[in-house]
C-alpha cells in the first residue's frame, strides 16, 4: 500500500520544499535589510519578464537538462555520478576539436558531429570510473569526484599548451569558424514572426536537450536495456538471478551518463562562447545533481527542475546586478533550494505521509 497518492509525491513535495526554501531565503534577505518582495519581483522580472530574461533562463536550463539527465540515468542503475562537471569539461574539448579541426559546410552537420564528439569525450571520461566500479569495486562517488579535478587539470594543460592560439595570453581556443555558429532562439523564431531577444544566449541546443529528455525516457522505460538498468539499480542479487551482467550494465549506464553530461558542451561551448575557455561549465555538473534529485530522476521532472534552476540562476544574477544583495547571498539562496528540494526530502515527506494516512483513516 503506497502511503501517498502519486501526485502528492511528484508535485506536492517539491512544491512545499520550494516554498519552505523561499520563506527561509526571504528571512535571510530581511536579515540583511533588503525587501524580499521586491527581490522576488526583480528575480521574476529579470528571468521571466522579457525574452532577454527567458533567453538566459533557457540557456542555463539547457545546461542543467543535460547534466540532470546524466545524473538521472546513472541513478537508475544505482550509481551516483558526481562527475558530470568533469565529463562536461571534456565534452567541451570534444566540441572544440570537432569545430576547429574540420571545415564544416553547414551548422547542422557540425552540430551533429559536435554532439557526437562531446558525447564520446564525456563518455570516455566516465568510462574509467565506471570500469573501476564494475571490475574493481572502487566507489564511483569517490572516483568521479577525483576525475573532476583531473579533468580541470587536463583542460588547463590543453588550453595553455596545445590549443591556445600563438600570441594570445588567454587560456582559451581561438574562435570557432562562422560556419559552425548555432542559430540562437532569435534566429530560429524570427522566421515565424516571434521577436526573441538578439543578445540572449539560448540557442538550438535547447531542442537537442529536449530531444535528450525524450531519448532518456524511451531508454529507461521502453527498452530492454533500460529495464536491465533499472533492475540492477533496484537489486543486484535480482539482476544476477535474471542473468543481467552487472559489469556490462554499469559500463553502459555510465557511458550514457557521461555522454549526456559531455553533450552539455554543445550549448555552452558551441552555442554560447563559440570557443573553449577555462571553467566553461560554471558548476552546471553539480547543479545537475540537484536537478535530478528534484526531478525524481524522471526526464520530465528533470526538464521542469532544469527550468526552475535556470530561473534561479538568471534571477540571481539580476539580483546581484540591481541590488546591494551580495553575490554570495545569491549562492546561499540557490543552496537553500537545493537543500530543501534535494537533501531534506524526508523532512517534508514524513509529515505529509502522516497527514495522508490520517485523512485516509478518517474516511474509513
Amino acid at each position: 500500500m503506497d502511503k501517498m497518492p502519486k501526485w502528492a509525491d511528484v508535485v506536492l513535495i517539491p512544491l512545499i520544499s520550494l516554498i519552505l526554501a523561499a520563506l527561509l531565503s526571504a528571512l535571510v534577505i530581511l536579515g540583511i535589510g533588503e525587501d524580499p518582495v521586491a527581490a522576488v519581483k526583480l528575480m521574476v522580472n529579470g528571468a521571466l519578464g522579457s525574452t532577454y530574461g527567458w533567453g538566459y533562463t533557457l540557456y542555463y536550463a539547457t545546461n542543467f537538462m543535460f547534466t540532470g539527465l546524466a545524473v538521472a540515468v546513472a541513478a537508475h542503475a544505482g550509481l551516483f555520478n558526481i562527475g558530470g562537471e568533469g565529463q562536461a569539461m571534456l565534452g567541451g574539448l570534444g566540441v572544440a576539436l570537432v569545430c576547429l579541426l574540420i571545415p564544416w559546410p553547414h551548422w547542422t552537420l557540425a552540430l551533429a558531429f559536435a554532439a557526437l564528439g562531446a558525447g564520446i569525450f564525456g563518455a570516455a571520461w566516465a568510462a574509467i570510473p565506471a570500469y573501476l566500479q564494475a571490475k574493481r569495486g572502487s566507489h564511483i562517488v569517490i572516483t568521479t569526484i577525483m576525475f573532476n579535478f583531473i579533468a580541470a587539470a587536463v583542460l588547463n594543460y590543453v588550453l595553455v599548451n596545445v590549443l591556445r592560439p600563438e600570441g594570445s595570453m588567454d587560456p582559451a581556443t581561438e574562435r570557432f569558424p562562422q560556419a559552425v555558429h548555432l542559430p540562437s532562439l532569435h534566429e530560429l523564431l524570427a522566421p515565424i514572426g516571434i521577436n526573441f531577444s538578439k543578445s540572449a544566449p539560448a540557442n538550438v541546443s535547447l531542442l537537442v536537450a529536449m530531444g535528450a529528455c525524450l531519448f532518456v525516457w524511451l531508454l529507461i522505460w521502453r527498452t530492454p536495456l533500460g529495464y536491465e538498468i533499472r533492475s540492477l539499480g533496484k537489486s543486484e542479487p535480482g539482476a544476477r538471478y535474471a542473468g543481467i551482467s552487472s559489469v556490462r550494465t554499469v559500463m553502459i549506464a555510465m557511458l550514457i551518463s557521461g555522454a549526456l553530461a559531455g553533450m552539455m558542451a554543445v550549448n555552452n561551448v558551441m552555442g554560447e562562447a563559440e570557443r573553449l575557455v577555462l571553467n566553461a561549465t560554471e558548476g552546471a555538473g553539480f547543479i545537475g545533481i540537484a536537478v535530478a534529485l528534484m526531478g525524481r530522476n524522471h526526464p520530465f521532472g528533470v526538464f521542469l527542475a532544469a527550468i526552475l534552476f535556470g530561473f534561479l540562476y538568471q534571477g540571481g544574477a539580476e539580483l546581484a546586478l540591481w541590488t546591494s544583495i551580495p553575490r554570495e547571498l545569491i549562492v546561499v539562496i540557490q543552496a537553500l533550494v537545493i537543500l530543501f528540494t534535494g537533501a531534506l526530502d524526508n523532512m517534508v515527506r514524513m509529515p505529509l505521509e502522516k497527514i495522508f494516512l490520517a485523512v485516509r483513516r478518517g474516511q474509513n
Partner: protein
Amino acid sequence: MTAPAIELKGISKAFGPVQANKDISIRVAPGTIHGIIGENGAGKSTLMSILYGFYKADKGEVFINGKKTEIPDSQAAIAAGIGMVFQHFKLVENFTVLENIVLGAEDSGMLMPSLRRARKELKALEEEYELYVDPDARIDEIGVGAQQRVEILKALYRKAEILILDEPTGVLTPSEADQLFRILDRLRAEGKTIILITHKLREVMEYTDTVSVMRRGQMTATVKTSETSPEHLAELMVGRKVLLRVDKVPAQPGAPILEIENLRVVDEAGVERLKGINLTVRAGEIVGIAGVAGNGQSELLEVLGGMRPGTGSIKLHGTPLPLSGAGSDAKARRGAGIGHVPEDRQREGLIMDFHAWENVAFGYHRDAAYQNGVLMNNAALQADTEAKMEKFDVRPSDPWLAAKNFSGGNQQKIVVAREIERNPDLLLVGQPTRGVDIGAIEFIHQQIVALRDQGKAILLVSVELEEILSLSDRVAVMFDGMIMGERPADQTDEKELGLLMAGVAGEAA
C-alpha cells in the same frame, strides 16, 4: 481460580487502512504453553509487538497476572516480566554469551561486577532448566540452537515469567527443535507461561496446552489442543477445508535430465561451499534436498541457476553446461531450459518496486515475444501478465500493482507462474512456500506436481522437512556441502532424515 498470566481485552490496531488486529481477546493461564497460529499477515506478529511494547494498540487493555498494565515500550514489557525470543535473533555477534546476556541489564557503570553476578546466575539458570551454553564462547562461534538458548537465557536473566517465542523452530534441525521443546517443557513445569507463535501445525498439536487461531486480524477460535485436530486448525486458519498432504500419483521417472558430477563451489570468502556433489534428476520426478539452512543448498541452486561459478560438470539432456565464464550466466541457463524459483523472492525473484507486469518479464525481458523493434512491447507483456494472474489466481489480479504490495503468497505465485509457464525441462525450486499462507502452499504444490506429471524434472530445496517429505519423490540430504545420502521419500521419515541432516552418515543409499 488464579488470575490468567496474560489477558488481552479487545485489542485493536490499524496501520492506515489495514486492520492488523481487530478486537482481540485471549486469556492465557499461568504455567501453560499457549500456541498462536495463523497465516502470514494474520496479525500474530502485530499482536506480540503490542504485548512487547513495540506498537501501541489503538484500543484495548492488557492485564498481567490480573493487573491492568500499560506497555509503552520494551523496557516496560521486561519490567512486567515479559521476555521475547525473536525469529531473527538480536545478539551481538562478536560479543560473548555472557556479554550478550548482560547487555542492557548492567547493574552499574562498571562492567565487571555485572559480569561476575551474571556468571553466577547463569550457572543457576543452566542447572535449573538444562539450558547449557558456554558463557565465554562468542556468539558467531556457536550454533543456531545455542544462540536461541542465549536468547531464552537473556529473557530469564531479566526475570521473565512470560516467554514469547516467534517461529522458534524455523532455523533448527529436528533434534535441536526437540531439545528446545524439552526446555520449554521444563520452563512450564517451573510455572513459566509460554506463548508459541508458529505456523507449524505439528508443533502446536504436540507441545501446546491451548491454541488460538488468527485469521485476517481476528482471533477466530481458542481451543484446548487435546480437543482439536490439525485438519480442524488448518480450516480455522484458512477459512475453508485444506488438503494438508500433497495429492499425487507415484512418480514415473524417465531419462536423466540433470546430471551433476563432482560439483564444487568456492564462495567469495574462499570457503568451499559445495564439496563434490553428485546427483541425477530424472524426467518426471521431484528430487528434494533436505538440510539445515546454510549447508550448501543455496549454493547448489545458485550454481545450477547460473548465479555463481563452480567447477565439476553439469549436464542437461546429456549436454554439458559451462560452469564459469561465457555462457554460464542465468540468461544462458534459461535459454537451455532451466527455470528457477529462487529461495529469496524479495531479493532475487522479484524487483519489489516494479509493477507486476514488469516482474513477469524478469529474466525473460529479452524474449522475442516481449519486443517491438528496439522497444519493449509493454502491451503484450501486460496481456501476458493478466493471463498468468488469471491462471495462477494471483490476487489482486492487477498487473499495475507493485510487487511489494502483494502478499507473500501472491508474490510467490507471480514467480512460480513466470517460471512454470515457460515450460522448463528442469525447474529449480528454492523454499517455494517460505512465508506463504496455507491456501497458496496447496496451490503452489499442485502446480509443481503438475509440471512433474508432464515429464519435467524438478529439484526442490526446502528447510521444511514436512514439505520435502510430502512433495518429493526422492530425498537427498545435504550437510556441510556434501550429500549425506539419498532415500525414496516414501521409505524414510523425519527421524532418519534428521540424523543425516546433523551429519550422521547413514549407510549408502
